[in-house]
């Protein structure tokens, strides 16, 4: 079994008192340790089955995003629930062209989301610019800005494609290959 490493602070004054028989540690050390054990599999199983996403309709794909969360496709049955506030959400879906004016707002939404969090690029515009790749007002190369886990091509992709994207994200999380957590 791996060893729990105690964190040693730089300053002598910050050093906690030595208590015989007790090893001091920090919470990040514990979670780093857990990542190497079977317990992480259990945590990931929990995470992958409740992927809540932000409703952030930014373009044509936003319409399909709305329908995916609604009655007919009903992603609630997979634990994928649309949330209006980014603070409740785990998954940011970039659903359209990112313009130079909107990019700061999108980064702010990303910052507001609590970790662990994932990004899905939904539609051609978010992946490579789509039909607007040459426009003067869109920002390109979104994958350099956000750690994208799943790309969904299509203009716009159908609702089934988004469900498939979530399934792939679940598989990635289960296999510990996602970018939401550093293993």
């Amino acid at each position, binding site marked *: 079994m791996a060893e729990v490493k105690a964190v040693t602070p730089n300053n002598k004054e910050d050093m906690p008192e030595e208590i015989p028989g007790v090893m001091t540690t920090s919470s990040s050390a514990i979670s780093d340790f857990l990542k190497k054990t079977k317990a992480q599999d259990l945590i990931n199983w929990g995470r992958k089955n409740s992927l809540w996403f932000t409703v952030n309709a930014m373009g044509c794909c936003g319409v399909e995003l709305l329908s995916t969360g609604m009655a007919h496709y009903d992603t609630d049955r997979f634990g994928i629930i649309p949330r209006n506030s980014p603070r409740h959400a785990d998954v940011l879906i970039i659903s359209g062209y990112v313009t130079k*004016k909107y990019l700061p707002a999108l980064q702010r939404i990303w910052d507001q989301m609590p970790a662990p969090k994932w990004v899905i690029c939904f539609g051609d515009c978010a992946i*490579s*610019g789509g039909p607007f*790749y*040459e*426009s*003067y*007002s869109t920002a*390109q*190369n979104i994958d350099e800005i956000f750690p994208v886990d799943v790309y969904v091509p299509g203009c716009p992709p159908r609702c089934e494609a988004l469900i498939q994207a979530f399934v792939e994200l679940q598989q990635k999380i289960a296999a510990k290959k996602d970018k939401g957590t550093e293993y």
Partner: protein
Amino acid sequence: MDAKTMIDSLSSQFTGTIYDVSVESDIRIIAKVKPENVKDICRYLKDKLSFGHLCCEFAVDYPNRNEIEVVYVIGSYDHPVVLTLKAILPRDNPEIESVVPVYWNANWYERETYELFGVKYLNHPDLRPLVLPREMLGEWPLRKDYKGFPNKTARNLV
């Protein structure tokens, strides 16, 4: 009242300021106006000829002729005639009187034309950029000689 009588009434009221009138069909008229009279003409159109609906207002850039055309497309809620008015401005310093006092919804059209073409509207209540970020003001992206289009920054391009 049909298109012919409307344009007759307009030209008799503003002799010399309206020229190149062409009646394309029963419901379409195109005319050119002197830029300094645009507001008065619009006021007359709205009050007397019931052209109460400004469909849109925009600009067209003609670098060869060194001109920018400001186009007003004015319709009506009462009759189907649509009148297209064109005011020709110099390309170096395009300035024209704002029609916001007459047509309230010209506000955004003029803000947009300002940021995309650099047409300066005099006496506009709030001439700020509408759709572009503030840093891009002064680039006039819809002019024909704009350098930033097509944008080649996309890495994934073949």
